[in-house]
């Protein structure tokens, strides 16, 4: 996982701005999916907030209606007070129940929404074209599943209900205060304005440094990642001291940013809190003066109530301001998550599908069970459905391809592979060999020309079905966490243990697997770090063998395998190629000599073609390569 993010990509780094579209969409995602839950939660929050301030308001009643008169009148009848407290207690009981219910239901909503977001995001990611993964940094995509989802979790389960309840509280408290005394309320409002001003001032300063801190953190984390991953090289070159120096300067930079950012954030709480205390004092003084002079109908009870109410008012405001940062961060995260979800999925207009088939009286018929015979099911516009047997006939006609517009990587590629034929591509790195194979399974779409599979334009074939019919062994082997057995079974999920072992035997992988500590049950960790390159290659061949497809695309990766293992791998590859149409990016002489057609590529073009003998006779580039004349140039 790469902690480094692109410039300013960190939430909060966008000038603390809320994108209303994202907010709306998120709210809709939450409220839309859980309409009833949401309505219930809202109701409970309202009830609980009102119950909360009922007590503060009751202080006035307590002092003015009971304590003061009773002290004065020496009446000892407490039944009225008992009754009133009973009412208050019931209100509290309802409030407590309401807050329990909304907290409980909120869990359902927030966890449900998060699961939905996670699943949707992964679902959508699976649909994206290879191009997306070429263009986007993995660490950046990963952080949407980690940081961004996490900030979202905090926001939905905490900030959202808190902000809502705070708003309700503010409204209810304002109303209560106004009903007791307008001038004192205005005093409270003035103090709150001061609080907001202080928050904005300090928050703004803090935000500047927070952005700086995030940037410094990104820099240092990127540096740490690079140096730790390259630590062996650092040591081989005695570069430890140099790397420490650079680290120290980054670390000191981060330290000063972090200290400033936290300083302002830390100061905010006591400043805001104590403005609240000052307001408390002011209410006492001014309220006291008003009570003594008898202006505005201020009583002792009113002052007492105001003292509680002003605290009840400051609290939700403080809460909203402290949640604001979390909300902004979460929305920035949500924006990035939505951006991933909005990525255009790999288009698939194919309608021709692959089915099991059997031959009945020379006629190809669709059937359910696995017969070993496959057919392309081709529905036509007029409702007819025709079946074409899958044979592995592939032709490319005048194919052009570019990654970026106007920059052709492949030009005028035309070739035909008959069923069971082996087509070898040779040429220098960057000549376009791998690119051709990526077009056949439609990892990329061609710019111009046609590719036909058994006579059907591959654009018409459903991508998943097209890919099922093509096996692939890539040069870079990717394995998954799980056992060796599970990794080979990846090729064919229905394969029995025996079939997996048979595939391993065919790939010549059985011997080394048997020698592993737990044989086929040996766990593979972090992309097969516990296996050698050659062993991983063997597992990937076995995986392709388990899939048993009619057409194979092989990227011969001889470089990573030593010669002895290579001989083992070669036997496996040769067996895998038998009876299939094969496109092979070839490095080995035997592969090339056995190929029906050899395509010599240079700068995106096929410059020579033919079999080994005819190409040798031609005495062109292939012959030069073969006899090594180029080496002497």
């Amino acid at each position, binding site marked *: 996982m790469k902690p480094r993010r692109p410039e300013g990509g960190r939430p909060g780094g966008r000038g603390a701005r809320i994108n209303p579209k994202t907010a709306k969409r998120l709210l809709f995602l939450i409220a839309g999916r859980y309409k009833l839950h949401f309505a219930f939660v809202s109701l409970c929050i309202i009830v609980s907030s009102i119950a909360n301030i009922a*007590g503060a308001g009751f202080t006035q009643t307590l002092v003015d209606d009971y304590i003061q008169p009773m002290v004065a009148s020496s009446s000892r009848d407490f039944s009225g007070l008992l009754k009133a407290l009973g009412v208050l207690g019931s209100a509290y009981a309802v409030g407590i129940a309401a807050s329990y219910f909304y907290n409980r239901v909120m869990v359902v909503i927030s966890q449900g929404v998060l699961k939905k977001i996670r699943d949707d995001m992964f679902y959508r990611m699976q649909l994206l074209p290879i191009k997306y993964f070429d263009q986007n940094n993995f660490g950046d995509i990963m952080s949407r599943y980690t940081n961004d989802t996490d900030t979202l979790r905090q926001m939905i389960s905490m900030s959202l209900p808190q902000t809502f309840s705070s708003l309700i509280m503010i409204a209810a408290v304002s109303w209560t205060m106004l009903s007791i005394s307008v001038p004192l309320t205005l005093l409270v409002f003035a103090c709150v304005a001061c609080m907001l001003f202080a928050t904005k001032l300090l928050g703004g300063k803090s935000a500047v440094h927070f952005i700086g801190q995030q940037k410094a953190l990104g820099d240092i984390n990127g540096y740490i990642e690079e140096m730790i991953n390259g630590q062996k090289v650092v040591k081989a070159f005695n570069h430890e001291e140099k790397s420490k120096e650079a680290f120290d300067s980054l670390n000191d930079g981060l330290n000063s940013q972090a200290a400033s950012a936290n300083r302002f954030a830390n100061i905010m709480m006591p400043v805001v809190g104590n403005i609240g205390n000052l307001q408390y004092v002011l209410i006492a003084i001014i309220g006291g003066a008003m009570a003594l002079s008898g202006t505005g109908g201020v009583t002792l009870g009113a002052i007492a109530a105001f003292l509680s109410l002003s605290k009840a008012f400051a609290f939700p405001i403080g809460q909203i301001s402290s949640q604001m940062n979390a909300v902004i961060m979460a929305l920035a995260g949500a924006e990035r998550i939505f951006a991933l979800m909005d990525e255009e999925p790999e288009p698939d207009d194919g309608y021709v599908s692959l089915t099991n088939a059997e031959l009945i009286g020379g006629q190809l018929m669709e059937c359910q069970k696995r017969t070993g015979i496959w057919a392309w099911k081709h529905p036509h516009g007029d409702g007819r459905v025709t079946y074409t047997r899958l044979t592995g006939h592939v032709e490319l006609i005048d194919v052009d391809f570019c990654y970026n517009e106007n920059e052709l990587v492949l030009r005028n590629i035309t070739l035909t592979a008959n069923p069971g034929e082996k087509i070898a591509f040779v040429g220098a790195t960057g000549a376009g060999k791998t690119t051709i194979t990526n077009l056949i399974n439609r990892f990329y779409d061609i710019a111009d020309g046609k590719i036909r599979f058994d006579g059907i334009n591959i654009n018409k074939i459903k991508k998943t079905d097209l890919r099922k019919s093509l096996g692939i062994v890539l040069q870079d082997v*990717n394995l998954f966490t799980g056992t060796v057995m599970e990794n080979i079974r990846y090729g064919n999920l229905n394969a029995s243990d025996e079939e997996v072992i048979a595939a391993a035997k065919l790939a010549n992988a059985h011997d080394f697997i048997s020698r592993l500590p737990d044989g086929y049950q040996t766990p593979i960790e972090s992309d097969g770090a516990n296996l050698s390159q050659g062993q991983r290659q063997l597992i990937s061949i076995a995986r392709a063998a388990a899939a048993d497809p009619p057409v194979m695309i092989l990227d011969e990766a001889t470089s990573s395998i*030593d010669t002895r293992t290579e001989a083992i791998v070669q036997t496996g590859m040769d067996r895998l190629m038998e009876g299939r149409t094969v496109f092979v990016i070839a490095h080995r002489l035997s592969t090339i000599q056995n190929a029906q057609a050899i395509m010599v590529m240079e700068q995106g073009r096929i410059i020579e073609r033919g079999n080994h003998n005819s190409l040798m006779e031609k005495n062109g580039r292939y012959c030069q390569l073969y006899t090594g004349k180029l080496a002497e140039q």
Partner: protein
Amino acid sequence: MIKRLFLCVRQYKRDSILAPLFMVGEVSMEVLLPYLMAMLIDNGIDKGDMNYILNMGLRLFAAAMLAMCFGILSGAFAASASAGFARNVRKDLFYSVSGFSFSNIDKFSASSLVTRLTTDVANVQNAYQMIIRMAVRAPMMLLMSFAMAFSVSRKLSMTFLLALPILGFGLWYVITSTHPIFVRVFKTYDKLNRVVRENLRGMRVVKSFVREGFEREKFGVISDIIFKDFSKAEKRLAINMPLMQLCAYGCLIMLMWFGARMIIVDKELATGELMSLIAYSMQILSSLMMLSMVFVMIIISRASAERITEVLNETSSLRNPDAPVFKVKDGSISLKGVNFSYAGKGGKICLAGANLDIASGETVGILGGTGSSKTTLVQLIPRLYDATGGEVIVGGVNVRNYDIESLRNAVSVVLQKNVLFSGTIKENLLWGNENATNEEIARACSLAQADGFIDALPGKYGYFVEQGGSNVSGGQKQRLCIARALLKNPKILILDDSTSAVDTRTDAAIRKAFKEDLPKVTKIIISQRAASVQDADKIVIMESGRIEAVGTHETLMRTSQIYREVYESQTRGGDFDEASQA
């Protein structure tokens, strides 16, 4: 663990002490406020004494201002203390890793080290700030408020004694019952991330085997576990707030009822005092709540702290000798009965009884099957690992007696998994020798056959290489790594399969250049191509951790069946590119 981390406080000790001290000041002032307020209400407002109101109001004002100042100071010191603490932890970690041997790195794995230096440090930093502020604030607030309430009314304070245990026990139950669930959830999160990461890396495999659905299911299962566990934990957490309200409201009603009675009947209490008790009750309960949050934070960060101390306490398995030899005389190498195991003595033997003599200036090729320990063998020469048994002698001296830096300067290894760093090509090359002149750089690049493509790059030697060298091809990367190694002017040069992505023509040119221009340097070449080692003075054949045979091409063709097989398979049906050499 705590002790080790405490060592990281160092120059921030002053700030770390001042922050909680000022916090105590702030809390005392805040606790004083309701008390003064009670006096203001009872003696001022209730009795109609405006002077008293103003007098007491001034004191209240002063107390609030003092609280604010103390709060600001405490916050500022806490910020610099925690940021500084994190800085020191990070620094100690990085230095510690810099001192690691290869086996230390293997033990932790690079990715786990990265997490410890980033995420774990951030967690510990937050916890530290929390401890020097909140962990002081909450208990102080609790105790002081309680003491004040007690001094106002002993009787009414009993209500708190009733509420506190209820809240305390409830919070304790919630924390202890949810903590294991959270720990589990975070582990599951790791699994989820792993699935995503593997999918990102292996997207081509997923797509070509049409396993999107399968992967989605895999993801879905894990996502579901997280959903269930999180829901379970959060549902338990959901009683926190109502529990707090129950206690607070309960206190409030009891205070109002008994308080009113005491004011009216017993005349033991004044209205203002009742108000102050209500304020204290809120302070006491909220500080208990805060205490529980601190507690959770500390528990969560404990795992991070443990992981960090693990690294800090790890001692490098390689030590410089007491009286090191600084000069490597020549490039001769001799292995005497060398054994090696990655797991140390008693572990699985990877290299057994290796004996080999290489004269200075020789070219030695090493061939062998996968896992035959070719790489292991050569990594012992610059003492990247220590031999478990036997002696490795370079330039007539046991490698353990050299100063490690001098030894590694004399022995240049191009590792199999070679790495370029983000920076210009020149900056990368200067790793070999930071004082290299442009001429020296150009010469190294021409020997490594890298000059041609560098000249074609935009910016030439100033071309910026991205992290991990992602914007140069594999072959270019390998050639740059070779040039970098050459710039060290080594006495011994080791190429561990370092030309695998380079085409044969260039490979041959590199070897030719080595032979002609570096006659005095001992060259060890691990390769998969028989032709790459065919012309070597000595060819070493390795098989399952043993040196099977040593000899020239001619002798090995006669005596070593393995070599003969390899050679014949390659020339007959071997690498196409190889044909140009044959």
